[in-house]
């Protein structure tokens, strides 16, 4: 493939990888605190819808973006209530959250289908955008992409260099030990659930505000599930999440381009590619035996004493 095709493809990979990156990092924070939230798909949909609607109503896309995160965090709070408040089953609650979130967003979003929204457009960064090849791929994007560049570093530093990050990790690894060290396990896990839900919501908001400026039902199209798989692929490390998200973004962008070019391969096969890759990635990461890097107390509720 000639270079003038590859560069736009890679730039598109970064763009379509960005919502997945936000969601993966969000789910990663939640899982690091020991809570498995399979409601990512539902939270992304709610985030996407509320961001779209609020920026449309207020004319302020930044407010919409922020509220996308807040609304998704409110949905995550339901998961927190079930799992942390009542010690409910995390898998069941997460699945319910996905079904509920997707259904609610599609229902409330029906009147908006086809509406042109407002959102973020591409802004070339001065100087950086002029770097050959890299500039065109990384620095001719919208501002939310630039924001997402900083996130993995921030989250990595958060877990390594802050007291709160250390505490959050400890309740995901051994909540009983954390409690005997005097930490508030339930409170810390609430933080993990809400903060994670917020980031997942931002991922959804990116879809409706920057990826396309249009509302369609089923906008997330399984990206939430890909994020869940990517957390495993990334071995719960923010740095690897970047790589995984752009890999998936690349496959998504690639299949769109192939469809647009009109190949003989049926469209449904092409559309299947990212999801087939999800399965392959899960098999590969399980086979390397690194699945053991999951937080030791992931999805384990801490029972109140006696």
């Amino acid at each position: 493939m000639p270079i003038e095709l590859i560069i736009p493809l890679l730039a598109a990979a970064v763009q379509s990888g960005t919502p997945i990156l936000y969601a993966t990092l969000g789910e990663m924070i939640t899982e690091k605190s020991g809570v498995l939230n399979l409601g990512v798909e539902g939270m992304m949909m709610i985030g996407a819808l509320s961001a779209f609607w609020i920026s449309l109503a207020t004319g302020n896309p930044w407010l919409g973006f922020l509220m996308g995160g807040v609304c998704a965090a409110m949905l995550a709070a339901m998961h927190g209530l079930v799992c942390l408040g009542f010690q409910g089953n995390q898998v069941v609650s997460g699945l319910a959250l996905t079904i509920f979130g997707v259904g609610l967003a599609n229902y409330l979003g029906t009147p908006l289908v086809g509406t042109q929204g407002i959102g973020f457009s591409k802004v070339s960064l001065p100087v950086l955008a002029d770097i050959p090849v890299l500039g065109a791929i990384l620095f001719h994007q919208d501002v939310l992409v630039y924001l997402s560049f900083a996130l993995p570093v921030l989250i990595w530093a958060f877990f390594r260099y802050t007291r709160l990050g250390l505490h959050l990790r400890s309740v995901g690894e051994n909540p009983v030990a954390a409690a005997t060290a005097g930490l508030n396990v339930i409170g810390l896990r609430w933080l993990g659930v809400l903060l994670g839900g917020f980031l997942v919501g931002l991922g959804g908001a990116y879809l409706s505000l920057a990826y396309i400026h249009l509302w369609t039902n089923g906008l997330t199209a399984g990206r939430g599930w890909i994020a869940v798989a990517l957390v495993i692929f990334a071995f719960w490390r923010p740095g690897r999440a970047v790589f995984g998200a752009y890999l998936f973004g690349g496959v998504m962008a690639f299949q769109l381009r192939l469809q647009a070019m009109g190949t003989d391969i049926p469209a449904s096969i092409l559309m299947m590619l990212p999801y087939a890759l999800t399965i392959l990635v899960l098999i590969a990461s399980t086979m390397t035996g690194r699945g053991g890097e999951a937080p030791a107390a992931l999805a384990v509720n801490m029972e109140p004493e006696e």
Partner: protein
Amino acid sequence: MSPNPSPASLALDPTAIPPSDPPLIRLEGLSKSFGPVRASHDISFAIRPGRILALLGENGAGKSTLMSMLAGRLQPDSGRIFLRGEEARFDSPKDSIAAGIGMVYQNFMLVNRMTVAENVLLGQEKHFWVSPKAMEREVGELTRRFNLPIDPGAGIWELSMGERQLVEILKLLYRQSQVLIFDEPTAVLTPVEAQHLFEALRNMAGQGKSIIFISHKLEEVLAVADEVAVLRRGELVGHWEAKDIQSKEELANRMVGRTVSLEIAKDSRMPGEPVLRVEHLTGPRLDDVNLVVRQGEIMALVGVAGNGQKELVETVAGLRPPGSGSVKILGTDWKAFFANPSWKESLSYIPEDRLGVAVCREMTLTDNFLLTTRQGFCRGPWLRRKLARQTVAEKVAEFNVQPGRPDMLAGRLSGGNLQKLVLAREFYRNSRLIVAEQPTQGLDISSTEEVWRQLLQAREHAGILLVTGDLREAMTLADRIAVIFRGRIMDDFPVEDQERMKRIGLLMAGSG
């Protein structure tokens, strides 16, 4: 003093303890019930700085409840705790830690994925920002000051059990705890590690700290404690100076409340046919292992944990295939034996990890019993549940499993009773080869005694491979002893061989 002193609190004779220093911590009439169960009842005692108090009691005597109240994990229903004469209230572990009470739990409270330094400082970090380097430096200074050989940057997952305990002690030292509580601290330690621990306890007591130490092992209580307190059914039945206790037997009698014999009579018998023959077995952690167990004998495999015992046992039990070499069970080759194992008169495995491997905690006693004996209760494809239930009721009564309702969940049993359930099940099968892995770990004296008797009885018809870290257990039960080190059997000899028995310690450390 409590308004109505019960006979239990009267047993604490104030003249027995010389009242030189004021007590660091004093309990007054502490009580705690769970529903109808009285876990602690009107417990009063005091401990002065620089003293080591051993707290003894059978499983379920209420030791853990008492300690949890001191650690702030449980709140007493009534009674008071005084710290340096001031009444204290612990609503959470945080309060208790802040008051200077430090606790080392039997199951270490460490985050395995984190480093030593991170564990020591967890919950004690001074600033929002933390630096792994600075943390390691700080903890490194502490290890040098107290001369504890441990690398602050190492991950917990890399450490031995003894080293993990040092990390727990570092936590207490860092927090400058004044009252240190150890819950069965030697249960997972090798004899040498236990000696180091006792030295550390003495040192810390020498610095004016008070130490409470819970144990089942009478020798170590008499060796290390200044005072001994005994709990029975939630009540304090006595509190003495250790030097006033003449012997192990006397202590055991006071603890159980009846006469117990610590020596178990064992007649020697003629070993019969080999039931297990391991030849040149080499594999992960195993290096040319040769071992024969005959019917009618108990072969004790001793060694420091992690020297290949687990791998050998799991191979014999059919959980992992042998590498090179041969394993013959009841005269049949490994592969053929496990291709079609019989439930009866065959092989029984009594695993170390009771809740993880031996039973399912969310299943009833009956269902757990059926896990390995179901073929005996089948008629065609149907399970004869009524018969099974009846058999379980008889068996749990015979093995004294308390409480022994066949329909209760196994997870509700205490460790000792769980082990008795497993023994009842495995012995029901009349197995000819029994592999018992740490069968009395964590059990109290009465339960240990019962388990030992059962094993000796099973020797009548079976050969037993007993894997143990407890040398006393090996010497009490075994006919032969094999010592394993780094996957090799260092030596293998009858217990009557006094000369070689003396060298066990050296052999366990790889020399001799």
